[in-house]
Structures are given as structure tokens and as C-alpha cells.
């Protein structure tokens, strides 16, 4: 029998992050295709207690272990901790979510195992039992490449957040956690001194279902407050074009596009953004793109699903009002 498909799950606070559950769902789908089992691996103080949840999202077995702080174990110690179990398990494939946590650990683990890794994939298909084909964006989203894995295993993948649906969420049986030996975080030469959490409760750009971005048309940092209101009404995050970040209106971690964050939300709202190549390429995987700009000739309109030619300072507040109204309606119905 083939080795299992393993999803390595990122834990934060009380449980697994959403992109990891998306990856687990794909691990379960790939396992079905290969007629093998889907396993999950989680490292953290409460990892074992997540077994039932991971079972609902597609895991048939769960490897779990760790003490306080080990969900933030540095990539080197993390790799030391999981390598022996993964070698013993001989998985057919190992999947991570392409979050900052997952990307750096997947790359290190692949190097340790001496296998290739396909990063931030957006689709996959198991063509015949011995091969796997995956697609991923390259050149900042300007081109898409398809890669093929041969029979050298494990196939290692990281999955772009927001692309894949959440897994089965079926009421399968609760997998029995298999204990995993994990060293304490204090033994690392790379010490985490402080976590600085952004004051606003906003999802990270790469994982947000809705992103509302502003560009040169915002004219300054203060007007971004109207975008924050809209993002809040839609349950999303605020982004900015490179021009807005270059001007110092928004911090670099809010930059969307190349040299910033490549996003793939369900809804992207571009306000006062003309749509330079680096920006357009960085939002290409968004499900629906709406653009608001005073210039009817702005390139962003050709790249949008819907466009409003108008003053964003008039349109955005109305859009916020309408979105709040709709949300109230939905709440009342429920």
C-alpha cells in the first residue's frame, strides 16, 4: 500500500488556522485519489486536543505533540522534531498551507528530506497513480507554470490560502492521536522575544476573503479610514498599492502585488488604483475584482469584473452604507 498523504497543520491560539484546514481538505482529496489514508501532524501544547476537529476536516490519523510555546518552535527545531516521524511514516505527499509559518518550514523540511517542493500551488491533479501535476503563479502572477512530480516521494507542496474550499467537515470518527516527541522551544538559538499584534482585528492580507485597497487616488493616509470602514462592513482587510506605500500613506505590510503580498480573496475592491502591471498580477487569483476610479481609461477597469467610474470619496461611503444595510438584513433574517 502507498504511504499516506500528510497535512502539516499550523496552530495558533485555540486551534488550527483556516489555510491549514484547506490544505488538510486537499490532503484528504489526494489520499482518496491515491487510495490511501490522510494524516495530519500538529505541533503545539493543545495539538492532541485538536484531533477531533482535524478528523472532521478530513484527517484519518493525527500525529500530535508539544509543550507551551512549541507552536512557535523555530523552523530548525521544528524540522528536527518532525523529521524522524515523517521518515518512518514514508508519506506519499506532504502538504502545508503557504502561510509564512508553513512556507519556511516546508522549505526546510524538503531540504532535509532531499526532495523538491512546489510552493504556493493553486491547483493539482493526479494524472496517473505515479505522477502529480500542480499549477502555480510565477513572475509575480504574470505567468502560470505547471510542474510535474515523478515517482520520487514525498511530493511536497504548499497550498496558496483562499484557493481551495474547506474540507469535508463530516462527522467522521475521532482519530486517535499518535504522540510526537517535540523539544522545548527554549533550546533554540533563534529565540522569539516578542509578538507584536496589529491593534486592529483584521485578517492577514494573504488569507482575507475580502480585500479593499487604495492607491494614489486616496491622496493621503487619513482618507484610508473610509476604506477601513468598508473593509469592516464586508469583513475584510485593507490593502494598498505600491504607490500608496511608497508615498508613506500605508505601511509595507499592507502592500498588495509584487514586492508586497500576492492576494487571492473572493472579493477585491480597488479604489483609486490605476492598475500597474505589478499590482494587476498580484491580484489575478481574486474571484471577483471591483474597481472604482475617476479615470475611465484606467487600466484596472479592463482587468475588473465590475467598475464604477466616479469619485471614490462619494462611492465608497455609499458602498459601506449599503453593505452595512445588507448585513443588518441578513442578521434580522437569521
Amino acid at each position: 500500500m502507498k504511504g499516506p498523504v500528510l497535512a502539516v497543520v499550523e496552530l495558533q491560539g485555540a486551534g488550527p488556522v483556516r489555510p491549514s484546514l484547506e490544505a488538510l481538505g486537499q490532503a484528504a482529496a489526494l489520499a482518496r485519489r491515491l487510495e490511501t489514508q490522510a494524516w495530519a501532524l500538529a505541533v503545539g501544547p493543545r495539538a492532541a486536543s485538536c484531533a477531533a476537529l482535524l478528523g472532521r476536516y478530513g484527517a484519518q490519523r493525527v500525529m500530535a505533540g508539544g509543550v507551551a510555546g512549541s507552536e512557535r518552535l523555530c523552523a530548525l527545531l521544528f524540522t528536527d522534531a518532525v523529521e524522524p516521524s515523517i521518515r518512518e511514516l514514508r508519506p506519499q505527499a506532504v502538504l502545508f498551507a503557504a502561510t509564512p509559518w508553513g512556507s519556511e518550514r516546508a522549505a526546510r523540511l524538503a531540504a532535509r528530506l532531499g526532495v523538491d517542493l512546489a510552493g504556493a500551488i493553486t491547483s493539482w491533479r493526479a494524472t496517473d497513480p505515479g505522477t502529480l501535476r500542480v499549477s502555480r503563479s510565477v513572475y509575480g502572477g504574470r505567468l502560470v507554470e505547471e510542474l510535474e512530480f515523478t515517482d520520487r516521494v514525498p511530493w511536497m507542496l504548499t497550498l496558496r490560502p483562499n484557493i481551495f474550499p474547506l474540507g469535508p467537515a463530516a462527522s467522521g470518527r475521532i482519530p486517535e492521536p499518535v504522540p510526537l516527541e517535540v523539544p522545548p522551544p527554549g533550546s533554540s538559538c533563534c529565540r522569539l522575544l516578542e509578538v507584536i499584534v496589529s491593534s486592529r482585528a483584521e485578517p492577514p492580507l494573504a488569507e482575507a476573503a475580502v480585500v479593499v485597497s487604495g492607491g494614489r487616488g486616496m491622496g493621503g493616509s487619513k482618507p484610508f479610514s473610509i476604506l477601513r470602514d468598508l473593509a469592516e462592513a464586508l469583513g475584510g482587510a485593507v490593502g494598498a498599492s505600491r504607490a500608496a506605500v511608497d508615498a508613506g500613506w500605508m505601511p509595507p505590510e499592507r502592500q498588495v502585488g509584487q514586492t508586497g503580498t500576492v492576494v487571492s480573496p473572493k472579493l477585491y475592491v480597488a479604489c483609486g488604483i490605476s492598475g500597474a502591471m505589478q499590482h494587476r498580477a498580484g491580484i489575478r487569483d481574486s474571484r471577483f475584482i471591483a474597481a472604482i476610479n475617476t479615470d475611465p481609461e484606467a487600466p484596472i477597469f479592463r482587468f475588473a469584473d465590475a467598475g464604477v467610474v466616479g469619485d471614490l470619496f462619494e462611492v465608497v461611503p455609499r458602498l459601506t452604507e449599503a453593505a452595512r444595510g445588507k448585513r443588518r438584513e441578513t442578521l434580522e433574517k437569521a
Partner: protein
Amino acid sequence: MRICVLLKQVPDTSARLQAVGLEPLFGGCLPVVNPYDEFALEAALRLRESGAAVHPSPVPGGPGGPEGSCEIVLVTLCAAPVEEAVFHGLAMGADRAVVAEPSSGARWTPLETGRVLAEVLKTLGPDLVFCGEKAADDEAAQVGPIVAEALGVAQVCGVESAALELPGPALRARCRRGNSFHEVSCGLPCVATFLRGPALPRYPSMADIFSAKEKPVHRIPVSPARVSALRRVSLTAPPEERGRKMIRGGAREAAQALLDLIDRSVDCRA
């Protein structure tokens, strides 16, 4: 102290690209330094300018540079000519460059690239290895961790700004983690990968450009140690244009119509 900065040359990030077979068609677009590597080089230069990086090498018996000095060495691997990127890096302030030249023009996977770069780095004995978190061409975001693994040292990824902690020395870094930041301290030697932070890369002055021509560039032939198990089978330019339904009317009507269209098209809560 010696800081090695990994540098890659990529096609202009603002140019439209097309694919011909399995390779992109660059047309007349200019080669530039991978912008993420430029952030890494800028961080190295600032570390040297801070004065902290003159500490003697913590690598026991390692060739970490003479006491009281800090050397910045560019290390690059490229089958194609890399003159522009290397020259720009030297003009920004690096002291010298080591160019690893592959025997063939075949595409290398990140694993091959990282391992060969690590072999080159072992001959240089760096205290710090800086590079971009990813390259603006293959977008792999793997070479930093692979180099760290091959050197057997810790990695610090997604760094926005860095400083040296003395005594120690240790690398003190502010790393971006989605919505939050991690402040970490990492013993030397280590590998750090950089993102865009508050400090933008400098523009070289005319004097810097002239002096760069005098700086040493050492070339060494290399070849990959293995045959890759991952190969590219297609490369395509995705469709650029979308439905672009234009909504007209006053602000209020347009806003309502836009929201209705969004609601019919996507479910943002699912």
C-alpha cells in the same frame, strides 16, 4: 565580520511577459536585481553602517574577516550573464562578488540552487547570509531555508528590519507574520530572508558606480549534484481581461448596483 548577500537577476518586474514553450519571452525588458534581494543588500549595508558589524567573527577559526572590519560579499548563481545585477550590487556598496556559473543553461530547481550556493558559501565562511524571501521570477521562497539547512544553521524568515545585538553577537530581527510581527534574536551564523521594510534600497551615486568597476568579481564553475524530480511541463500567460461590467449612475445608485452584482457573483462569507 563577513556578510554574504545572495543576489539573483530577474526580468523587469513591470514588464508584460509571454511564454514561448517552457521559457518566458523577455523581449526587450531590462534585467534587474531581484527586488527582495535588494532589500537584503540594503539591510546588510545598514548593519555595516551601524558600526555593530565590526565585531570579530564568532565562527571559531572561521575566516570571518579581520577584526574591526565588515566585508559584504555578493554571491550569485546564474547561467545567463548577470553583469547588471552584480554591478548594481557592487555600486550599492558591496565589496566584491562571487559568481557561480553553471556548466549548462538548464533550469535549476530551488533545491539544486540552494545546495550549490551553500557549497560556495562554505568556502567564504560568512557570519550572516542575507537574501530576499523570494525571487520575483520563480517565486519559490525556498533558497534561504535550503541554504540554512545545507549550512546547518538557523533561519530567520520574512525580516523587515535587522540589527546586531552585542555582546553575542546575535541578529535581532523584526519579522512579518501575516498581520503581526515577531521580534526574534538569533545566534550567529544564521540565514535571514528579507521582505520590503521601512528602509528602501539606496540609489548608487556616480562615484559609487565608477568605483564599482574596480571591485573584484570572482567566477567559479558549478554543476548540480542531482537530477531534479520536479520538472516544468507548461508555462502560460493567464488571461488578463475580465468581464468589466461598467456601472453608471450617481454614487448611491452605482454603489447599490455594485453591491448587488457582488452579492450575485460571490459569497464572501463562505
